[in-house]
């Protein structure tokens, strides 16, 4: 039973894939746009930070769910 719970928590952590892809895409685009318009760097950086924090949220949800599975079932 406990191994099943561990597998369930591990599956919940798969949300990290989406966050990784999202942050990677956002950072790549930000680097591209800074190369194109270096004078807009401060604006791009603040938008990038916000976008990264929002994209990271999905990974955090996965972490919380994994933790809840372990705490409530284990």
């Amino acid at each position, binding site marked *: 039973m406990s191994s099943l719970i561990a597998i369930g928590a591990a599956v919940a952590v798969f949300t990290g894939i989406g966050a990784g892809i999202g942050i990677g895409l956002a950072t790549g685009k930000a680097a591209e746009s800074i190369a194109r318009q270096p004078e807009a760097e401060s604006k791009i950086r603040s938008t990038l930070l916000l976008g990264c924090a929002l994209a990271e949220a999905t990974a*955090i949800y996965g*972490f*919380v769910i994994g933790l809840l599975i372990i705490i409530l079932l284990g």
Partner: protein
Amino acid sequence: MEELNCKIMFTIPVGDGLPIYESVVVTWIVMAVLVLLSIILVRNLKVENPGKKQLALEAGYLFFRNFFYNLLGEHGARYIPYMITIVLYIGLANIMGVFGFVPPTKDMGVTIALALMSIILIEYSGIHQKGTKGWLKSFAEPIPIMLPINILEIGIRPLSLCMRLFGNVLGSYVVMKLVEIICPILLPVPFNLYFDFFDGFIQAYVFVFLTSLFISEAVE
């Protein structure tokens, strides 16, 4: 696993005993710091020849005010003091880990309360701006098919606000504890800088940014 639960600091002997959690005590400390700072900083303010302290205070206030004014717009400007209070509280609460306290935002109760306050303010600002009828009508905009989604949003918005803050702070707390087990001296310093300062401020920023975004949407 015991580290994840919020500890009970002491119990007030009322009835069956009222437990006081660690997060409440740390919140009192944050409150004391903020109240003391606001008492000390606003003493001896002058219109003529302002001192260095007053200039710094005014610059800081204007920075926050302009930031929120750009987000909230003219109609939402009356909520600026609330937003500044929230960003100061969350910002200070998230870096409490540096001073050896447990950050109160690690307790889910604190983040649930913050998110509930946010959603109540968002809906209140809509009612205040449009009247009850206009507020009810705004659920069916832009097209009536959106009605169930708009109603669902009342529940989803505070849930995502609450879980984002809680999960980030808890995650950084767990990582910090693991790093401290590996090597208790010197190694945690860069991690501390990233997780407590950078991540804490980013999360405070995201929380107030999203709340003010929703308010500006509600008062439009």
